[in-house]
Structure formats: structure tokens, C-alpha cells
């Protein structure tokens, strides 16, 4: 029997892993918190989510088509869906449809495809879109609503919801509700200290379960944690980024809270509110834009945590996850440039190891 076999380089056995599989696991991990968010904020959230993800897919396909790259394998890798998905989770659930569309276009086209597509982007595409939207449309991006669970009394029905998402956004004024971080920021700027500002605000348990105002997928710390643990168990992300990032924020918050309890909320509030949890497990851990070495990842995560705390506490924005992640994304190449693992048989500086007794092992 004569057969021809391709002559390609080795190895000729492989782990049963692929990019699609990685992306599918991340989506699976996002599923609980997404489902809960969609339930919590009702039809408008479902519409916005659908519009955002669909736009991401279409934008990806169009970009690939324009760049004359093969469309099918890159669409099927799931990265575009995931980008749209993550972006949707960070948007206010009742934001108008065009926020999702513009956001997805920014994420896929400016955030990813101009860099050459999958794996080439320097910044997290979802966070590029999130920051660009926040700066361009501050009103729409900071108008949050209290939870209006699906089918609950007082929640908008299907038709009303169409109006919320695809109609005029101005009607939200009556039912808008601030996020905890936004509320604290406003109160502090008015000279009201935390002992009063935190009255009538969601309790820690509420924050844990996520039954509060906030972005679509950021409210339930517990469900995000569950998804994150799944990714950790599957070894898709390493423990370093989430742990170091959360620990940095917690330590800083505790120190500042001890220094001035009336101005700085304690660690629990910081950890459970805003997009910190989602950021720590799903956004900062983005493989493409985070450092490749363990030490580098620790440094990156500590940097993220530090920046988040600084921006939350002292800058003009109540929430800093997106900014912090973008800033650390920008530093990632430098981190990878300066922090490299030690090469076998070499010192950290790259010189061959020299043993003190080497003189004895080589005869002259």
C-alpha cells in the first residue's frame, strides 16, 4: 500500500484544546450571571443584550470580509460573541439600543479588527468600547434603574420594553436609580459623610446576591464568583490575576477605611459593588491583553487593583475598572519586556550559571 503523508513539523500529538473550546468555557461561566441579569432587569435588558451581541457578530463578519480573511473559522472561534457579551454585561440594562450598537462597533472594529483581529489587539475590546461610550455618552451610560424582574408587577411588558430600548431614553428619568458607587460619590461631593450616605442603601447581602441597581451583569457578586471558580477549575485563567486584584483593592480599602471611616467605605463595599468582580474574573483575565508570566500577571493585577481604588476614591469617575484595565493593558507589553522567566541553565540576568566548584570539574 502506498500512502502519502504530509511532512509537517512536530509534535505529532496534541492536547485536546482549541480556541473555540476556551471561549465556550468562558461563555458557560458567564451564563449564570447573564441569565440572572436578564431576569432581574427584564425585557429591555434582553433586547439590549441581543442587539449588542448580534452587532458584534455582524461587525466581525463585515471586518473579516473587508480584510479578505477567512470568515468562518474566525467567526466560529467565539471571540466576537464573547466581546459583545462582555460589553453588554457592563452596560446599563435599560440603555437605548444604539448604545449597544455603537459599543459593539467600537469594540470589534476599533478595539480588535484594526489591529489584525483575534489575538492581535493591544487593549481589551469590550473595555475600549465601554470607556469610549462612557466619555462620549455620559448620560446614557450612567442612567441606571432599580431591578425590574421579568414578569414581576411594575415591570414593563414586552411592548413597553420595546419602547424603552428602541424609543426615547429620556423617559427613564422617573425611575432611574443610582448605583451604590455613584451614590457614595454624589453624597461625598455634597459634603455628606458615609454614616449618613449609606443609610437606605443596599445591604452587603443584597450586593452579594445582586438585587440592586447596576450594569446588566455586574450586580451579583456571588454568581460571578461561581463562574470565575469554574474558569479557575478548568485552568482557563490563573488564580493570580483575580486574587491579586481583589486583594489589592481590599487591602487599600481597609487601610483607608481605618484612616477615615467617614470618607472611605470598607473593603466589603468595594469588593461587592460595581464591576470589580466581573473585572477581576472575566475582564482583566483576558488572555490576549494580560502578561504572559506569573510574576508579570501579579504585577499587572496589583496595578489594576491600585488604579481601580485610586480612580474610585479620588478621580472624577465613580467606577474605574474599565480605565484601570485599559491602562494596565497599555503597560502589558512593557511588563512582558522586563519580566521574563529565568531560562534553564542561566541566571536571572541571562548569563550561564556558574557553580563555585566548577573549577574542579573541568580539567585544564
Amino acid at each position: 500500500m502506498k500512502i502519502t503523508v504530509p511532512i509537517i513539523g512536530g509534535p505529532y500529538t496534541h492536547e485536546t484544546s482549541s480556541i473555540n473550546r476556551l471561549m465556550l468555557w468562558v461563555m458557560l461561566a458567564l451564563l449564570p450571571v447573564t441569565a440572572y441579569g436578564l431576569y432581574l432587569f427584564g425585557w429591555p435588558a434582553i433586547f439590549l443584550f441581543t442587539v449588542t451581541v448580534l452587532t458584534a457578530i455582524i461587525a466581525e463578519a463585515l471586518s473579516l470580509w473587508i480584510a479578505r480573511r477567512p470568515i468562518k473559522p474566525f467567526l466560529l472561534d467565539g471571540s466576537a460573541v464573547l466581546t459583545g457579551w462582555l460589553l453588554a454585561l457592563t452596560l446599563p440594562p435599560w440603555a437605548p439600543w444604539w448604545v449597544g450598537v455603537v459599543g459593539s462597533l467600537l469594540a470589534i472594529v476599533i478595539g480588535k479588527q484594526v489591529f489584525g483581529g483575534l489575538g492581535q489587539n493591544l487593549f481589551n475590546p469590550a473595555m475600549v468600547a465601554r470607556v469610549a461610550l462612557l466619555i462620549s455618552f455620559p448620560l446614557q451610560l450612567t442612567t441606571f434603574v432599580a431591578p425590574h424582574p421579568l414578569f414581576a408587577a411594575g415591570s414593563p411588558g414586552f411592548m413597553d420594553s420595546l419602547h424603552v430600548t428602541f424609543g426615547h431614553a429620556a423617559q427613564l428619568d422617573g425611575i432611574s436609580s443610582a448605583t451604590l458607587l455613584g451614590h457614595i460619590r454624589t453624597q461625598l461631593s455634597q459634603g455628606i459623610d458615609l454614616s449618613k450616605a449609606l443609610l437606605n442603601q443596599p445591604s452587603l447581602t443584597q450586593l452579594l446576591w445582586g438585587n440592586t441597581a447596576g450594569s446588566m451583569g455586574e450586580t451579583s457578586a456571588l454568581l460571578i464568583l461561581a463562574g470565575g471558580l469554574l474558569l479557575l477549575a478548568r485552568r482557563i485563567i490563573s488564580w493570580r490575576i483575580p486574587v491579586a486584584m481583589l486583594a489589592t483593592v481590599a487591602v487599600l480599602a481597609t487601610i483607608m477605611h481605618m484612616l477615615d471611616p467617614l470618607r472611605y467605605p470598607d473593603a466589603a463595599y468595594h469588593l461587592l459593588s460595581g464591576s470589580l468582580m466581573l473585572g477581576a474574573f472575566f475582564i482583566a483575565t483576558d488572555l490576549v491583553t494580560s502578561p504572559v508570566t506569573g510574576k508579570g500577571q501579579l504585577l499587572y493585577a496589583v496595578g489594576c487593583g491600585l488604579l481601580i481604588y485610586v480612580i474610585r476614591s479620588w478621580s472624577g469617575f465613580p467606577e474605574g475598572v474599565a480605565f484601570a484595565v485599559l491602562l494596565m493593558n497599555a503597560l502589558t507589553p512593557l511588563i512582558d519586556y522586563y519580566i521574563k522567566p529565568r531560562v534553564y541553565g542561566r541566571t536571572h540576568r541571562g548569563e550561564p550559571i556558574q557553580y563555585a566548584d566548577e573549577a574542579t570539574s573541568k580539567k585544564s
Partner: protein
Amino acid sequence: MKLFKIRGGVHPDDRKKLSANKAIEPMPMPKLLRIPLQQHIGAPAEPVVRKGDKVLKGQLLADSKSVISAAVHAPTSGQIMAIGNYMAPHPSGLPIRTITLKPDHDDRWIELPAEVDPFTLTLDEIVKRVADAGIVGMGGATFPSAVKLGLRKRYELHTLVLNGAECEPYLTCDDRLMREQADDILDGIRIMMHALQVEQALIAIENNKPEALAAMREASSGFNKIKVINVPTRYPMGSEKHLVQTLTGKETPARALTADIGIVVHNVATAHAVHDAVRFGRPLISRVVTVSGGAIQQPRNLHVLIGTPVQDLLDYCGGFLEQPSHILSGGPMMGHPIPDTKVPVIKGFNGVIALTAKETAIRPPMPCIRCANCVTACPCGLVPLEMAARARNGDLQGAVDLGLMDCIACGSCAYVCPAHVPLVQYFNYAKGELTLRQRAEHKQAETKRLAEQRAVRIEHQKKAKREAMMRRRQEAARKKAAAQTTETEV
């Protein structure tokens, strides 16, 4: 004994069950043997026989003529049909100098020296016997063993490590050899210890081979200088430098040999060949080859004469179950594809593996997503993704700066890559290209010298011509002057 951890590494499914329980069996005599003259690292051997000669089994066919080279012997008795070029058992399929031998089926040995007690020989005599037998590293690296046994002269050695890790999936030839011929291997080890003048020998066997471990333990029970060590199953445990690190905790300095830290590593199959060569004077003319893989009808361990066509091995194992997607010499991690099944088995072949597409799980490559799995897996502490990106963009110097030359091409990175980037091929390409450039540079230096010589020569010629011209002119002037004087005299 305390063992030390190595960095990175992977755990590929070892799939040794396919052939681990098949005893080594001899192959029937093939119709033709094709014996390449370079089956080792170093210079090719020079033929000492001519076309048409009748040779006996074990007779020298080609001798090593330089320091790093190895002799080649006749695997059986027969007639030399040709000395020419034949397809090499190498991915390129380019031709290589090859002796074709037609067996006469008598299988008659050349007259062998009487059996000697190796411990009465001088150290140099042992090394010479190993060199004369044409023994090379049989784990696949094919470095001439005699050179390694002579390291005693340049290094202060204390330990001999026997590599029985066999960390490549599928391969079971060392496993079977240790199970079946433990005493012979042990004798070889003792001879090598003697030749190297080391205090101890450590036989390292991965813990997925309990039978081999037991056999070697039993064989070595009487010798307290020889220890059998159970090392964890983890690829690439069989890499010389990493095995030494596991056993001693010491890293071999970059660009140096394990001998620099007083250790010499040999394969267990090499020890067996040393036993044959030194005690009985039998050259290396055959070896054990594992024929395995999902596409093979009946996986087996075969005792094969050097020069046997791979096709014969496949036929003997019942051919293919299904069409293989790859046929390799060696294991799936570091083995190489063979260009055709007509190529011969050589000294470094430890396996012939035919894999199905499902087994290899190779997919079309996608762009790197910087997941850093390769960084975690690399046993050498490199950043494969960055090195490959530079090789891909033609920045070879950049790849070298990142440690390309410290890469052992073990394939751990490519094994775990979810994007299926052919990382190892990038590194092999870059290394090969750099070697070519070095050679080109060498040539450039040479041509520069020639050009300068030529410039000097031409300058000389011109000068000589000028001088000749000058002389002629002076001559003419003198003649003229002489003529004038005669004229005036007249």
C-alpha cells in the same frame, strides 16, 4: 533518594499499553539492506569496501575518519551491491551516501575476538572498543558514545546517569530491553562506570514502567554503587539536562555539557550495546524498534538489523488498520516524519509510529491568543510565543535574544497550544536558517580573503609589468645612447 522538581513539562497520554506487553521478537531477514554512512552526529564514515565485495556479519563497511564520527558494520553476511546515494531517513528525503547489501542468508559472523573480562582492559582500550563497534547514543540523539566515554580526560566526573525514562509516548523499546535483558544492561553500566572512573551510577526509570524498574532493581541488587531511581512520569523527563536536574537538583549551565557538573548521561540501550561490544567484540548492527500507533494492525517490539526498510517492519506488523495521517521515526513529541516507507532503519530509530488523524488531534493553526500555556509548559523557562512571533516576522536575531538557542525543541509548547501554532517548526526553521547564515558568513570571510589576495596579486603583476616596462625603456635608451655615441664616433 530525594528528587528535585523541574520547571514546566506536560503529561501527554503515554499510550504505551499498545506495545508494552509484547516481547522483543526478531525480524525475518530482509531482501536488501541499505546502510547509510551517516547515522550519527558528526562526519560521515568513509567506505572501506567496494562494490561486489563479499562481507561477513560484523565486518567493517565504513570507518570513522574524524574525531566525531562512527564506524558502520555489516548487519549480516552478503554481497555489496552498490555504494551510492539513497533517500535518507530524514524529513527532507534528500539523498545520503548509502551502502546496499544483499544478504546471503548464511548470517555468518566475522571472526570475533575471544571474550574478555572488561575490567582487565585499560580505560583507553574500552573506549577504543566502543568506538570500533560504531556505538552511538541510542535514545535518538546519535552522538558517538566513545567520545562521551572519553570525557574523563577533560572533566572531573563523579556520576553516570542511565536514561531509562523513555518519556516519549508509544515507545516501549527501552522498557522491553530493561525487562528482558537487565543483566546485560547492568554489565554495560559497570563497564561504562569503569571507563569513566565514576563513583556511582543512577538508573532513572519513569514510574509508569514498574516491571522494568523491578527487573533493573533485581539485576543491580548486588551492586551498592548502582541505584535504580523511580522518577515521576512527566515529559520531557528523558531530556538529559532535565533528568540530571531531577536527580541532583543542579542545572547544567547554558551552552555547556552535563559533564561540566560532573555527570555523564547514557541511554540504557547504549549500555546494552557497550556490553556487547566490550565483552564480546560485537559491533552495533541491530537495535530494538517499537512499531506502534493507532494505525498499526499489531503493535510490536522488534529486534531489527540496521538497514532494514521501514516498509518491512510495517508489513511484519500486519500493515495499517486505517490510513495513517503521520508516519514517524521516534516518538510523537520529538520524532520526525519519514519521507517514505522505503527508507532504512538506522542506529537512532527507537520507534516507527503510524498515527491516525484522531490520535494526533492536530488542527489548522489559528493566531496566537497569548494564553501563556506555552510559557507555563516550557521546561527551559523560555517564552515560546514571543520567540515564534519573531521568527514569523523574520526577526531571527530577536528570537535568539529571547533564548532560541536554549530551546531543546521538546515540543511541550506546541503540545499545549490551544491555537495549534506550529511553534517547534518556527524554532527549527529559525535555528536552521541561522546555521545557514553562519555558514554563509564563513564563506563570505573566505571570499573576502580571496578577493584581498587577488588584489595583492594584481598589484604585484602591475608593479612587475611597470618595472619590466621601465627596464625595457631604459634598455632602449641605453642602446639608443650607445648607438648615438657610436654614431658620433664615426
